[in-house]
C-alpha cells in the first residue's frame, strides 16, 4: 500500500477523490480498448469493406447473384489449360488421358503455380546455406550480414526489377566479366530464369531468417548428449538438429510460395509481355475496366494462397511450442584452426556459395547504380540530367521526379503514423490469452495474404468512388486512399516485429506493475513498451519501407492522378529506356535508406525483428 500524503495509512488513497486525476485514470484505463476499437474501425473501413466490395462484384452481376464470372474462368483453357475441361462437364478420366497424350498444359494458373514452385525451390536452396553460415560460423561482420538479410525484403520490388534488368541484360557488367574468361553472353531478360532469381532475391533471405532463428534455438546439450550416446557429428545433425529445422524451412517455403504466387511488379517488369501470372492478368483486366472478371480471378488467386497458408498453419499447430533454457550451439571460426579435409570442405562450399550469393543479391543493386551513371559512351550524368529536365519541362500528363519523391515521403510518414499504433495494438491484443484470440490474429493478419491489386481495386471502387450511407456519400479521396492502402499493407509487419518481444516479456512484470496500482494501459506504456522499443522501431522502419516501395495498390490508385510515388515513376520510365529508370531507382534507394537512418537515429538502436 502506498502512503497517503497526509501520512495516515489507515485512510488509503482511494478516499482522496481528485476529479482531474479521475478523468486521466478513466482515459488511461480505457486507453487500450479505445485503441482496439479505432484499429478495428480502420481495418473495417480501409480493408475489409473495400476488399468485400471486390468480392461482391465477382458474384453480383447486374444486381443478381451469379457464379458466371467464376465458371467463365474455370472453363477457360487460357486460365486452367487442360483442367478447364473438368469444369465443362467432361469426365476426369478423359481429361487426364487427353492431358497426358497431348502434352499437359495448365494455363495461366498452372504457370503461376509452376513459377512459384521454382521460385520456392530456389529460395530454399539459396536460403538454407545462408542460415548455416549465420548460425554456425563466427566471422567479422556476421551481425551486420544478419541484419542485412532483412534488406531485400523491404527493397521496392520495382527498383529491384530495374536492377535485374541492368544486371542480366546482354550488355551488363556480368557479361563483361564472363566475356573476359571466354564465357557468355548470358541474356536472361524476359525469361523465367530472371523472374525466379529475382524471387529468390526476395525470399531466400526470408527462408534464411526463420531458419537461423530455429538453428540458434537448438540446444547444444542435446547435440552433445547424442554424441555421448554414440552418434557421429553428421548423425547427430540428422537426428537432433534437422528435425528442429524442418518446421522453419517449411514455414519459409510456404511464405515464399504465397509471396511469389502473388508476385506482381517483378513479373510485370522482368517478364515483359512474354510471361504473365494471375496477378499481372488481374492488373491488365483492371486496366481494361473488366472488373467482374478481375474480381473473380483475384478470388481464385486468394483461395489458392489461403489454401497454402491454411495447410501450413495446420501443420504448424501440430508442432508444440517450447520455451526451454538452452545453450546455443557454439559458432566455428570461419578461418579454421587446423587444415584438414573435414574443416576445409564445408568452407570451400561456403566460398562457392558466397560467389553465387554475390551474383544474386549484390550484383543487381550494384548494376543498377552503375547503369545509372553510364551509357554506351561510358560514364555520364545524362540519366540524372534527364530527371532534372523532366522536372523542368514535363507535360501535364507526364510523371515528374520531385512530386514522386515528395509524395513517397508524405505517404511514408502518414502510413507510419497510422500503421505503428495499429500494429502495437494488434500485437498487444494477440499476445494476451483469451478466447477468440486466434480469430483476432487471423482477421488482423489477412492483409498479408490479400494481394495489393485487390486492395487497390477495392479502395478505388469502394472508397474513392464513394460509399452511400443513407442520403450522404462518403468519399475517401486521393491521399487518404493511398495512405490507407499503405498502412494496411504495412501494419502486419509492425505486429510481427512487436509481438515476439511482448511474448517474451515475463508476465509477472506487468502483474507487479498492476499490483502497484498501474492500469493495464499504464503498465504497457511504463513496462512493456520500453522493453520492446527496439521492436517498435524496427516495425516503424518496416512500415516506412513497405510504404515507400508499395507498388501494386498505388499504381491502381494513382493512375491518372498527381499522387504517383517513386516506384510508380520508375515503372513509367522503365517502359521507355532503362537509363532514367535506374537513375530514379538510385533516388529511391537513397531516399529510402536516408529515411531508414532517420528512424534508426530517432528511435534508438535498430534491432532486427520478424
Amino acid at each position, binding site marked *: 500500500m502506498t502512503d497517503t500524503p497526509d501520512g495516515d495509512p489507515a485512510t488509503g488513497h482511494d478516499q482522496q477523490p481528485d476529479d482531474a486525476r479521475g478523468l486521466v485514470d478513466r482515459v488511461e484505463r480505457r486507453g487500450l480498448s479505445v485503441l482496439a476499437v479505432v484499429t478495428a474501425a480502420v481495418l473495417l473501413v480501409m480493408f475489409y469493406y473495400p476488399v468485400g466490395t471486390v468480392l461482391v462484384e465477382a458474384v453480383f452481376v447486374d444486381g443478381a447473384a451469379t457464379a458466371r464470372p467464376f465458371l467463365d474462368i474455370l472453363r477457360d483453357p487460357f486460365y486452367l489449360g487442360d483442367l478447364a475441361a473438368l469444369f465443362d462437364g467432361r469426365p476426369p478420366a478423359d481429361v487426364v488421358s487427353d492431358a497426358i497424350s497431348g502434352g499437359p498444359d495448365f494455363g495461366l494458373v498452372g504457370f503461376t503455380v509452376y513459377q512459384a514452385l521454382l521460385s520456392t525451390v530456389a529460395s530454399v536452396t539459396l536460403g538454407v546455406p545462408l542460415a548455416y553460415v549465420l548460425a554456425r560460423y563466427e566471422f567479422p561482420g556476421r551481425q551486420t550480414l544478419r541484419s542485412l538479410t532483412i534488406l531485400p525484403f523491404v527493397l521496392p520490388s520495382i527498383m529491384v526489377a530495374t536492377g535485374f534488368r541492368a544486371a542480366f541484360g546482354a550488355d551488363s557488367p556480368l557479361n563483361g566479366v564472363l566475356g573476359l574468361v571466354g564465357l557468355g553472353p548470358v541474356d536472361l531478360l524476359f525469361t523465367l530464369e530472371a523472374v525466379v532469381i529475382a524471387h529468390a532475391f526476395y525470399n531466400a533471405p526470408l527462408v534464411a531468417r526463420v531458419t537461423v532463428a530455429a538453428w540458434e534455438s537448438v540446444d547444444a546439450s542435446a547435440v552433445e*548428449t547424442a554424441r*555421448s*550416446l*554414440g*552418434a557421429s557429428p553428421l*548423425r547427430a545433425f540428422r537426428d537432433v538438429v534437422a528435425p528442429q529445422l524442418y518446421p522453419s524451412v517449411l514455414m519459409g517455403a510456404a511464405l515464399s510460395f504465397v509471396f511469389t504466387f502473388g508476385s506482381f511488379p517483378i513479373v510485370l517488369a522482368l517478364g515483359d509481355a512474354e510471361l504473365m501470372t494471375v496477378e499481372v492478368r488481374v492488373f491488365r483486366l483492371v486496366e481494361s475496366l473488366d472488373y467482374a472478371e478481375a474480381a473473380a480471378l483475384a478470388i481464385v488467386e486468394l483461395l489458392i494462397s489461403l489454401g497454402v497458408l491454411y495447410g501450413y498453419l495446420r501443420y504448424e499447430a501440430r508442432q508444440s511450442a517450447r520455451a526451454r533454457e538452452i545453450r546455443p550451439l557454439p559458432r566455428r571460426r570461419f578461418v579454421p584452426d587446423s587444415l584438414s579435409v573435414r574443416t576445409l570442405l564445408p568452407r570451400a562450399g561456403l566460398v562457392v556459395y558466397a560467389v553465387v550469393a554475390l551474383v544474386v543479391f549484390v550484383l543487381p543493386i550494384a548494376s543498377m547504380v552503375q547503369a545509372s551513371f553510364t551509357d554506351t559512351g561510358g560514364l555520364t550524368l545524362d540519366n540524372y540530367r534527364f530527371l532534372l529536365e523532366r522536372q523542368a519541362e514535363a507535360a501535364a500528363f507526364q510523371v515528374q521526379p520531385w512530386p514522386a519523391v515528395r509524395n513517397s515521403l508524405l505517404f511514408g510518414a502518414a502510413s507510419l503514423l497510422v500503421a505503428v499504433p495499429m500494429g502495437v495494438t494488434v500485437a498487444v491484443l494477440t499476445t494476451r490469452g483469451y478466447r477468440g484470440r486466434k480469430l483476432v490474429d487471423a482477421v488482423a493478419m489477412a492483409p498479408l495474404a490479400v494481394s495489393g491489386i485487390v486492395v487497390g481495386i477495392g479502395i478505388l471502387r469502394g472508397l474513392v468512388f464513394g460509399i452511400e450511407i443513407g442520403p450522404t456519400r462518403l468519399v475517401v479521396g486521393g491521399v487518404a486512399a493511398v495512405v490507407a492502402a499503405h498502412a494496411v499493407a504495412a501494419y502486419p509487419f509492425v505486429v510481427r516485429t512487436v509481438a515476439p518481444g511482448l511474448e517474451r516479456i515475463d508476465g509477472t512484470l506487468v502483474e507487479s506493475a498492476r499490483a502497484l496500482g498501474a492500469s493495464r494501459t499504464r503498465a504497457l506504456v511504463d513496462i512493456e513498451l520500453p522493453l520492446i522499443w527496439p521492436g517498435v522501431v524496427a516495425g516503424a522502419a518496416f512500415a516506412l519501407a513497405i510504404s515507400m516501395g508499395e507498388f501494386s495498390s498505388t499504381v491502381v490508385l494513382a493512375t491518372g492522378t498527381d499522387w504517383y510515388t517513386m516506384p510508380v515513376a520508375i515503372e513509367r520510365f522503365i517502359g521507355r529506356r532503362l537509363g532514367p529508370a535506374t537513375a530514379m531507382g538510385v533516388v529511391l534507394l537513397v531516399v529510402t535508406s536516408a529515411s531508414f537512418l532517420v528512424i534508426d537515429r530517432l528511435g534508438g538502436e535498430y534491432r532486427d525483428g520478424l
Partner: protein
Amino acid sequence: MTGSEPAVELDGVTRRYAETTAVKAVSLTVREGEFFTLVGPSGCGKTTTLRLLGGFDSPTAGAVRLAGENVSGVPPENRDIGIVFQNYALFPTMTVRENVAYGLNFADPPDGGSTADRVAELLDLVDLAGMGERDPTELSGGQQQRVALARALAPGPQLLLLDEPMSALDARLRERLRVQLQAIQTELGITTVYVTHDQEEALAISDRVAVMRSGRVEQVGEPRAVYRRPETRFVAAFLGDNNVLDGTVLDVTDRGDGVRATVRVDGTELVVRADDRRPVPGDRLSFCVRPEALVVDGATNTLTATVQSTEFLGETTRAHLDWGGTELLARTAVPLDGSVTLGFDPADAHVVAVE
C-alpha cells in the same frame, strides 16, 4: 579394461580460453565404480572439467585418460560415456521411448537383449514404466530428469557424467532424486563424475569429493574427511558453516595426546590441536571451529560474546555472535540470548593453511 587402472585420470590438465583460464593444471583420479563429485562455486572450472572428460572440449595442456587410455582427440561418441545435463536436453522431436532408445542405435544393449526390452528395463529403473509414448514436454521436471538419466544409462556406458542434474528442481524433489540416483549408481556400480555447486548435496551423495576454486582443486577426499579436516580456509568456509580465526602462535606443546598450540587471537589466548601442521612460536596461524563445537560454559577456550540475531533451524538454533568485533556462528539446542560465554575443546579446532 584391466581393472587396476583408475577409471578416470586427469594429469596436469589445463584449459585456457582467449581471456581466461578455466582449469589450471588439475590432476585427479577417479576409481572404478566410484561416485566422485566436483564441487565449487560457479566459475570454479568444475563444468569445464566435466566437458573435458566428455570430449566436448579439449585441454590446452595435460592428458585425460579413461580406463588408462589417453583420449585426446577421441570424439564423445567413441568415449563410452553417458551424460546428463542440467537442462535435461531431451530431444524435443522424439518421444520418451525414442529418447531412451537413441543410444542403442549405435551400440547393442549391454545385456544382449532387444532394444525394446532394454528401454523398458531402464524406464522401470527410473520409475517411469509406461511413460514411453509421452512427449518429453508433457513431463514434469523431475520426470524429464529421470528420462535423461535412463537415456544416458541405456547403452551401458563405462562412465556417467552428471552436470548439475538437479539444480533446476525444488529442494524436496532434489533430496528424493538424490537418494534414487545413489541407489541406481550403487546397483549398477557405474563410475560416476558429478558436478554441483551445492556442498550439502556433494557431501551427502559422494564417495569422494574434489573442492574446486578458480580452476584449481583445493582438496580431494571422502566427505567426512574434507568436512572435518579442511586443508584451506576456502574449503573450511565453503563446506558448511564455520568459524575461521587468525592469530599468532605463542607456544607449542606435545603431551602425548597430540600437539597443542597456544594462539593469541585479538588479545585472547586460545589452545588448538595442531597435529597436522607443526607450527613454531611466532608463526601466523589460522584455524577453524565448527559452530556446533562452541558450547555454552565450555571448560576451555572461553569467549564472551553478544548475540546479534538467531535463526530457528528445527533441532538447533543458529546464533550470529559478536565477539569483540569478530563475527562468530554458534549452533545450539537451547536458543542463545544476550551476552553468553562459550568455549570449545582444543581437539575440535582444526588448523588450516594460512593465506
